[in-house]
């Protein structure tokens, strides 16, 4: 008996090389299969697909024709957007947006002073990138820049006037004084013994003089640079007072949202902690504040601020007409934020609290180091939700006569210079694009943050 080998059975077929791979059948891969799996996987889905296709086919071409193909892109007044003046069907009148674009950004802010707004915008953008972009260095300095230097600079630059200049002078003197103190401390660190304690002092003393206390020194240096630049600008160009009644457009929309966002988060954290506190008075006050604010519509708060308040408060002590809704919006957002954050706090298992306490951490250290970082991460979607709601609610200030971005568009819609049948559709489309971009940007960013922070839970 011989082995069944090729030599022994010459006519048997044995493959000597592998076949080239066949592409998968059309029913399981490729565009057709994708369509079948995703769009027509069953009778309900097929029906929905057809309905959606119908909606897209009936609306999109008209929208594209109106907003792009038939649109008018340049012109000086309404004649450019009138069908019988141009002799063709006219869609969106983008020329109107181009003509009023400056007004939509700055409102009635005096033209020679608009560079001040631009500087604040640039600082705001820098601060946002610094804080929100993962790879930027020196996050703590950025934090100081965004939450301390930016509000001060915005106040000095946007408002201006003698009061602001006096404030700037005081701040500069303060900065110089701090710089002098830390210069002395760099060489004679022993003087700081009383407030940093001997252990930290030993660390500082081991360093060469220019590196001692560098964390504080770089903040002082940054303040000095920013305030110094503003002082030089104030000196050369002057910062005459620009009344808040002249502010408008995107400036006001961003201002209201930024103030609301910046103040509502810390306030919300404090209120949420207060509501869960064991101290009865603090808990009671927090509950009363949160429930009261959540029980009134924002419009009521704004009316109270701008229509009723002037009746109780003497005219000379009455706060600024823009400041009142700013405070109202910030407090309003804080109450909602508090409930969102409380949700996060309740999701933290008791073991985390007990673990933190068993490490010997006090209340504030426990909250700051163990509880809040976890709680805030859980409620990022809720926080961003509140931010987006706040950003869109900022349009409500129009009812108390403040010219936010949407109001500036509406104000130009009545202007006969651009009164055409399509002006309104164009103006509101522009507003929609602006609000969509801002809100969408916020939500995309929050998703990115969530993914980054959830890295530890990924398997």
């Amino acid at each position, binding site marked *: 008996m011989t082995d069944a080998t090729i030599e022994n059975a010459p006519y048997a077929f044995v493959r000597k090389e592998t076949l080239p791979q066949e592409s998968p059948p059309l029913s399981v891969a490729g565009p057709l299969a994708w369509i079948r799996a995703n769009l027509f996987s069953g009778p309900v889905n097929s029906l929905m697909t057809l309905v959606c296709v119908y909606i897209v086919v009936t609306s999109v071409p008209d929208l594209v024709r109106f907003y792009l193909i038939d649109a008018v892109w340049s012109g000086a007044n*309404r004649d450019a957007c009138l*069908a*019988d003046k141009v002799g063709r069907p006219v869609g969106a009148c983008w020329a109107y947006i181009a*003509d*009023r674009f*400056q*007004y939509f950004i*700055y*409102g*009635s*802010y005096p*033209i020679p002073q608009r560079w001040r707004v631009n500087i604040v915008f640039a600082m705001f953008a820098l601060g946002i990138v610094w804080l929100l972009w993962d790879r930027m260095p020196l996050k703590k300095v950025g934090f100081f820049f965004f939450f301390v230097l930016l509000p001060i600079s915005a106040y000095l630059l946007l408002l201006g006037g003698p009061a602001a200049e006096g404030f700037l002078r005081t701040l500069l003197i303060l900065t110089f004084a701090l710089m002098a103190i830390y210069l002395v401390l760099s060489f004679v660190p022993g003087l700081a013994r009383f407030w940093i304690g001997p252990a930290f002092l030993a660390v500082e003393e081991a360093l060469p003089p220019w590196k001692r206390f560098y964390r504080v020194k770089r903040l002082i240096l940054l303040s000095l640079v920013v305030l110094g630049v503003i002082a030089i600008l104030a000196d050369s160009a002057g910062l005459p007072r620009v*009344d808040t*009644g*002249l502010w*408008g457009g995107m400036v006001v929309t961003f201002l209201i949202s930024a103030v609301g966002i910046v103040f509502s988060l810390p306030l919300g954290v404090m209120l949420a902690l207060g509501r869960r506190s064991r101290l009865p008075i603090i808990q009671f006050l927090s509950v009363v504040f949160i429930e009261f604010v959540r029980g009134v519509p924002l419009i009521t708060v704004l*009316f109270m601020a*701008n*229509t*009723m308040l*002037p*009746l109780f408060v003497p*005219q000379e002590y*009455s706060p600024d*007409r823009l400041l009142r809704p700013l405070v109202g919006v910030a407090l309003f957002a804080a109450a909602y934020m508090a409930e969102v954050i409380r949700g996060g706090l309740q999701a933290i298992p008791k073991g985390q609290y007990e673990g933190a306490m068993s490490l010997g951490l006090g209340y504030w250290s426990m909250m700051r180091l163990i509880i809040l970082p976890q709680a805030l991460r859980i409620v990022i979607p809720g926080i961003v939700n509140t931010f987006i709601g706040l950003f869109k609610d900022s349009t409500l200030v*129009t*009812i*108390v*006569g403040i*010219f936010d971005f949407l*109001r*500036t568009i*509406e*104000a*130009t*819609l*009545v*202007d*006969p*210079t651009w*009164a*055409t*049948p399509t*002006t*309104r559709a164009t103006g509101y489309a522009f507003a929609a694009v602006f609000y969509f971009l801002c809100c969408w940007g916020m939500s995309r960013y929050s998703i990115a943050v969530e993914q980054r922070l959830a890295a530890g839970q990924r398997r």
Partner: protein
Amino acid sequence: MKKFFAAAIAGLGLAVTASAASAQAPSTLAQVKQRNILNCGSNTGLAGFGVPDAQGNWQGLDVEYCRAIAAAIFNDPNKVKFIPLSAKDRFTALQSGEVDVLVRNSTWTMTRDASLGIVFTGVNYYDGQGFMVRKKLGVTSAKQLSGASVCTQQGTTTELNLADYFRANNLKYEVVAFASSDETIKAYDAGRCDAFTTDASGLYAERLKLTAPDDHIVLPEIISKEPLGPSVRNNDSGWFNLVKWVHYAMINAEELGVTKANVDEMLKSPNPEIKRLLGTEGKFGETIGLTPDWVVRIVKHVGNYGESFEKNVGQGSLLKIARGQNGLWTKGGLQYAPPVR
């Protein structure tokens, strides 16, 4: 003992008068002068009356009224802070002293005059409800609108006035009402109705939003009274007089032919009426707390009433509203000013 009481009573009386005097707030004019700027309650946007231009400067008939007051007080029409007010908070803002004068196309009515603690100073624009129709209908008067369908905004006095007018004139009509003014004008443009009705000043502004504005005409009939005018608080008659007389000065200037261009020559005019108006004779400006040449400043910076009207709502503007009721009394209109003397 008697003496003691007398002294006490006298002292008490003194104290009361003293406290009354200190409670008396400084006059509005003094406050405005001290603040060095006029706070003017203005509209948040109404074509021809108060609209921001591309640079963000307010323009319009009501706006120029405020500029005229500022020109009379400060010789600078830009010393005005416009505080845009919504329809809801306009009177509160005036009552609380947030604004010195409210020039915001407010209709002068008895209730407002009598019960809000404010007082209207006059009428700077006689408005009223009117009709717009297509030219090709061949209608020249509202009386010919029998059987017409009329587009109007729901739940406004406009709708009630319309019913009153057609009933009073025994005309048949059909109302097509919409929730917003925007929908209303769109429906009219699309041909859903024969006529469109709203306040006359608004008709001209809405007409510009039609696809072919020139195919439509505004009928001459005005079926309701909407006298629009500025108002002030009713506790300062000096300020009331000043605001009122700024308007009269502008009308008198128009009547006497004093314009922005010729005001300097007019100073040499021998006409006694012009001399009194421009302050070359008599010191009439001082009676309202200003200098004798107050009208010169108004006319130089803002112009007379006719100039302001034509520039903002009349032939010099896109609205092209006819003078009509707002013409001078000498030309068949209602604008009449008492003489300066």
